[in-house]
């Protein structure tokens, strides 16, 4: 008998199968996710997602008998009151029918197939067809990134790059060609010499000693490893064009924003944040919040601190342009911005916003997304409330600028779809 401990075997033996399965069911899974997302909270994006998909695309059909029709018999245990000849009402859903082993084992298909996606699988699928639009400005900057690519061997290099295999192969070739005596040969000569000495065979000993000396001399002349043998792995440094992008997150935190609206806006930015950090390695994110004045803040303050005050939207736009001018040269940076607001603005400010937007921001930006968070109640009732100041202002801009998009969000369920909409690869921007 053998006992084998298989526990240390590599895990995830069926991982490739799982990937194939996900690939196959991708379409269904995405539909199911979109459904599921409507019920989700942002905070949950850290967890895996249970999805339930229809079996259409992943059906494994086989020849099997229909569940209904014809005559069939069952043998079942547990008779209590029946005698032969009794008639019983047909049970609704296969109480007796489940007695047929065959129908169960033939892999009777479930209507829905339920399983759990890991966090990574979930996010990958979720962000699968999203991208930052027009990511076109690339530049080889001063501190360019280089990629090291293996490119053959070299005779000079650092010890850590020493290629032992190649070096020893050269050494072996050289030793053979220069007929360096092998260690075993020398050892044999030594023994021979000693035996000759021991046997008082002076002539033989002398002869052997000469051979031995010659061999040892040769060994010294032909070293085991010579500097000419040594080879190092060579790496080519290939400069990589660096795509630089910056995302500005502008959020209105003024008094007119209710807690619920702020929550919506934060959810949106959180999602944006997860998306950017996950999909793009080199994206700077700048957080700007504003009331009647605007300031650049760090991530933590942006998401967690509370503030209140009046509303002047243009301050945020000003602040953004200030940051752009000081740190992000539009010639080399792809500039993106997302703004969230309730649409309330100091009335005289709207024109200024429009001109800032049209003349300064949009010309240098790749894409500007505006989401307007509304009170749930107003949108729920079906009749549209009057468009807000900012919405009216931006509507005109959206008509003339292709890199500007705007959406409304009224409850958490809409955030995911809207986000998807704004950043989907085949984005159709509505005016």
């Amino acid at each position, binding site marked *: 008998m053998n006992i084998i401990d298989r*526990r240390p075997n590599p895990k995830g033996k069926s991982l490739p199968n799982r990937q194939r399965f996900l690939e196959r069911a991708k379409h269904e899974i995405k539909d199911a996710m979109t459904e599921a997302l409507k019920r989700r909270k942002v905070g949950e994006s850290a967890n895996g997602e249970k999805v339930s998909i229809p079996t259409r695309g992943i059906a494994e059909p086989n*020849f099997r*008998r229909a569940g209904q029709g014809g*005559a069939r018999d069952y043998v079942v245990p547990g008779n209590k009151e*029946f005698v032969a000849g009794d008639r019983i009402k047909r049970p609704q859903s296969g109480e007796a029918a489940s*007695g047929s082993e065959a129908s169960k084992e033939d892999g009777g298909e479930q209507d829905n197939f339920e399983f759990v996606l890991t966090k990574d699988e979930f996010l990958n699928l979720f962000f699968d067809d999203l991208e930052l639009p027009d990511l076109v400005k690339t530049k080889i900057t001063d501190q360019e990134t280089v990629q090291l690519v293996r490119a053959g061997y070299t005779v000079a290099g650092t010890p850590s790059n020493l290629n032992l295999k190649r070096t020893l192969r050269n050494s072996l070739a050289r030793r053979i060609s220069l007929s360096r005596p092998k260690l075993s040969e020398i050892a044999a000569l030594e023994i021979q010499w000693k035996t000759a000495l021991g046997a008082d065979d002076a002539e033989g000993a002398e002869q052997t000693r000469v051979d031995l000396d010659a061999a040892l001399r040769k060994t010294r002349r032909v070293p085991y490893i010579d500097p000419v043998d040594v080879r190092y792995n060579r790496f080519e440094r290939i400069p990589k064009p660096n795509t630089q992008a910056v995302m500005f997150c502008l959020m209105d935190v003024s008094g007119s924003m209710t807690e619920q609206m702020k929550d919506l806006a934060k959810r949106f930015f959180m999602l944006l944040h997860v998306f950017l950090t996950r999909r793009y390695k080199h994206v700077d994110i700048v957080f700007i919040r504003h009331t009647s004045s605007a300031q650049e803040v760090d991530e933590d303050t942006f998401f967690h601190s509370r503030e209140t005050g009046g509303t002047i939207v243009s301050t945020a736009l000003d602040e953004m342009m200030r940051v752009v001018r000081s740190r992000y040269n539009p010639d080399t940076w792809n500039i993106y911005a997302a703004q969230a607001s309730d649409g309330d603005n100091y009335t005289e400010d709207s024109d200024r916003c429009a001109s800032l937007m049209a003349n300064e921001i949009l010309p240098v930006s790749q894409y500007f997304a505006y989401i307007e968070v509304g009170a749930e109640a107003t949108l729920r009732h079906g009749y549209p409330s009057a468009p807000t100041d900012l919405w009216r202002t931006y509507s005109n801009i959206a008509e003339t600028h292709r890199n500007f998009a705007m959406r409304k969000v009224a409850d958490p369920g809409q955030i995911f779809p809207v986000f998807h909409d704004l950043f989907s690869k085949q984005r159709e921007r509505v005016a």
Partner: protein
Amino acid sequence: MTEAPAVLERKPLFDGPEWDFEKIRRVHDAIEEIAIGELGLDIYPNQIEVITSEQMLDAYASVGLPLMYRHWSFGKRFAREEALYRHGLQGLAYEIVINSSPCISYIMEENSMAMQTLVIAHAAFGHNHFFKNNYLFRQWTDAQGILDYLTFARDFIQRSEERYGLAEVERVLDAAHSLMSHGVHRYTRRPKANLNEEMRRAEERRLHDERSYDDLWERVVPKREPKSADDAEREREQREIRRKLGIPEENLLYFLEKRAPRLKNWQRELVRIVRNISQYFYPQKQTRLMNEGCATFVHYALMTRLHERGLITDGGFLEAMHSHTNVIFQPEYDDRRYNGLNPYALGFAMMQDVERICTEPSQEDLEWFPAIAGNNDPWGTLRDAWANYRDESFVLQFLSPRLMRRFRLFKVLDDSSQDTLLVDAIHDERGYREIRSALARHYDLARQEPDIQIVDVDFAGDRRLILRHAVHDGVLLDEASCRGVLEHLSTLWHYGIVLEESDAGTDKVLKTHEVAARL
């Protein structure tokens, strides 16, 4: 047994729940002594492998085989098992055992030592004995060769994926999988399976095919006849062609592998691999009741004997018995937990019943089982049954009236033309035989799986493949699923498919399914 060794053996083999390799070896050796010496079991050498619960899930997904080619359906199975397991809807099996030589049993690291003992008795001795001795396994499976063949299959499929692309390979495998249940030889005897031979022949076929042009189709397509040929002549010719093609044929995968006109050779090999694996599992499907009954009965006997000799503690024995009772629990039909007859319950009960008939027969048993009643050789009788029967014949031969009364079995007839179900027979004098033969039929795969055969190919016309489903008792095929299979079938055949469902008795066509050619 002499007094002295009994005293010596009083010391339990282990104490407490922790297991280690040394204890497992001790327990295995002790069990082996009883199983071979006293019960007369005949087993393949054992190989016990300890795995984690995650690896157990992996093993589930690849239908219990230690290595398997890659396919999305295994991923699907894994996802489902995992979901069920994580939600606590379903526990994991304690063990998986593979019909191979050496016989591999997987045991889980989470099990306590008492459970490991039970599992070893159950799998490494019960199932192992059944695999080695049952005629179906001996005739149809090659325990020595299966692991090598699976390695070959996995590598072949991986190479095909590299050469022809994942999608192409998947298409063929999907199609072949859908026909798996109709890819077995049911009746024809053939030489004992030899999978090593199989691999060698695969290689030979490949070489041969590389060298020679496949003119199969040319040979079977008749030349356009001059109009003069009369009907009788044509009919004769058609018969001749059908004979050459081996039609009618019920092993659909075999037919496609040999006759599908436009399959590439590597595609034929894929079909063949699926067919061989299907054939490998065919005996298991036909002997589930007996196999589990045998293993359960063996572990029960072994555990009892170990306990009698003081080799396991009372605590350990009770733990094992607790698990044993759960396994053989049979809910009644009106119970919410009812899900068909539990093969462990019925199997174990039947084995116990045979033992009773052999040792303490009642008058009734003497009438029903004159051949074995009171022969006082329960183990000999059982070993013979395990070797020479399958579920269907075993039930037909050995289900006793007493057991039918114990399970209170009754037979219900569900005729869709009637509004109510009819209780056809119950566990009484008039019903015993009826119930017994009806139950036996339920274990007969050939009756449970629809009888579908390839009956013709339309040579004169568009090379449609014509199949027939012989309908018994008016039970038709599941429409949607059938359609799916036919579409898969047409990817392998490349031309149209017609499936006629006709009544087995009257030949009246009840329904026709058609799928157009896929070019």
